[in-house]
């Protein structure tokens, strides 16, 4: 039986402790969260508030002219619920001159430019606010590579990266985030009508169960087929996980010396703290 249910009290306790520890050990007491109004960023924001206090959290709303008005409203609902500091900065004025230069840019290019424009603004705000950027990526999208490298994937720490999307929803519900945010179709909101599941070609509910077997339970692809998953679905997902591994590791450094960063120069980030 595949059961992705988690003990939400325990998850919450560990993730709050993680955010507090990894922020303060880096010499900070504040955090900045890009708040889209989706369930991932809303939950990251909630956990950061519990870890560091609402006064120490800056939520940054980053609408583009075609962003859904619902996204802004849902983000505002979270800001009001949690009492965090907030700022809204349109990325339209950054993105438009680039897109005007490339009028034939594909939706992928346009989406990546928007995601990276948001990253620039969030990191700039983190300098102003004096806080670390808390990431919002979950295990499903990290494994599938459903993220823009140096865009929405950029962060100083990532509390949700070991929770599948369905587990993020479970935790969000347990902490009392608005049901409207939990239930709406996940979207990167990069163009009108875009949804994660439409773009990926499968649902999170399906793929989370498969990833759980492949990754957490160490099933072979053949084991997964025997467990009832369609062969083409399994091979599509396995291939996607492998092809996107480059997004999960630092760029390889060509080894020349006796001691090379990444290979035999090994320290945790918490080194000395």
């Amino acid at each position, binding site marked *: 039986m595949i*059961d992705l*249910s*988690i*003990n939400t*009290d*325990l*998850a919450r*306790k*560990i993730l709050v*402790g*993680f955010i507090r*520890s*990894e922020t303060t050990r880096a010499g900070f007491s504040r955090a900045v969260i890009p708040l889209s109004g989706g369930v991932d960023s809303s939950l990251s924001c909630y956990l950061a508030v519990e870890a560091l206090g609402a006064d120490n959290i800056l939520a940054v709303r980053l609408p583009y002219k075609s962003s859904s008005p619902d996204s802004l409203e849902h983000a505002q609902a979270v800001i009001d619920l949690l009492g965090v500091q907030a700022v809204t900065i349109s990325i339209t004025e950054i993105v438009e001159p680039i897109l005007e230069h490339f009028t034939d840019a594909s939706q992928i290019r346009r989406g990546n430019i928007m995601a990276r424009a948001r990253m620039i603004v969030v990191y700039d705000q983190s300098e102003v606010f004096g806080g670390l950027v808390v990431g919002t990526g979950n295990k499903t999208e990290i494994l599938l590579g459903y993220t823009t490298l140096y865009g929405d994937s950029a962060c100083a720490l990532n509390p949700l990266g*070991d929770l599948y999307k369905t587990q993020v929803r479970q935790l969000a519900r347990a902490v009392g985030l608005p049901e409207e945010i939990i239930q709406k179709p996940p979207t990167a909101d990069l163009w009108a009508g875009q949804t994660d599941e439409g773009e990926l070609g499968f649902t999170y509910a399906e793929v989370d169960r498969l990833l759980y077997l492949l990754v957490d339970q160490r099933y072979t692809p053949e084991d997964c087929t025997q467990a009832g998953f369609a062969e083409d679905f399994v091979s599509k997902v396995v291939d996607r996980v492998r092809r996107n591994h480059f997004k999960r590791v630092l760029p390889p450094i060509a080894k020349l010396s006796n001691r090379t960063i990444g290979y*035999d*120069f*090994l*320290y*945790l*980030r*918490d*080194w*000395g*703290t």
Partner: protein
Amino acid sequence: MRLTLALAQINTHLGDVHANLEIHLEYIRQARAAGVDLLLFPELSLTGYVLQDLTPAVARRPSSDEPVFRRLLEAAKGLDMVVGFVDEDARHRFYIAAAYISRGQILHVHHKVYLPTYGLFDEGRFFAWGDAVRAFDTRFGRLGVLICEDFWHASPPHLLWLDGADMMLFTSASPGRGLGTEAQLESARWVEHINRAYASLYTTFVAHANRSGFEDGLNFWGGSTIYDPNGELLAKGPYHEEALVIGEIDLNQLHRTRARLPLLRDERTALTLRELTRILNDSNRGHR
């Protein structure tokens, strides 16, 4: 005879021995104020856990001449304790180690004999393997110390039992993993099960000190425990929080439990040795 045992479920600074020493001294002060007789610190309590290339920089030679140990020996007067550190031997091999300190002396040093090098663990890359499992005599009777993976294997506790240990002192820096629907992580549940099993099977006291805090994304789950020779839980620390966990032990429980359940009396060590010898000599089995 009753004694008060305390488990220092501390968080540590990664690679900062002096900052960790101050934490030890503070816990020693608290323990003394609480009338503690024996204080157990977790694995690598003086150094932090994921040391990697910090290993040679934090290593110490335990003696009264070594500045960190000198301060511990001075502070621990009237209190016995176990501290975790990196031991560098005379030939510059580095061991995950635990020192038993009593009355200004280092009575015993245990080197971790099982170094997990799989999954998230990489100890065998940085440390030398210990090569002895020995019980030793203290003012509270004969004890034994094991470090984390040592007691994930059944043989080191078994050896300590046969070597006369009536109290097993286990130390860990156990990274939490396995989140399901239960109130504790799978790793916590597993350790609690086996500690309880050792206490029951060996009709002995089992105390386990596990650290708390985080190192990068790893959480350490605390939940330190003391089990009595009936396998009953005497004390338990909170999960994922720093704490000084105190429990009182009545050593006469050994008499009562073993009068009821003479597992030690009936243990057939010579039979075990005969069979082990046969198994080791059977070249088809590939044992080492």
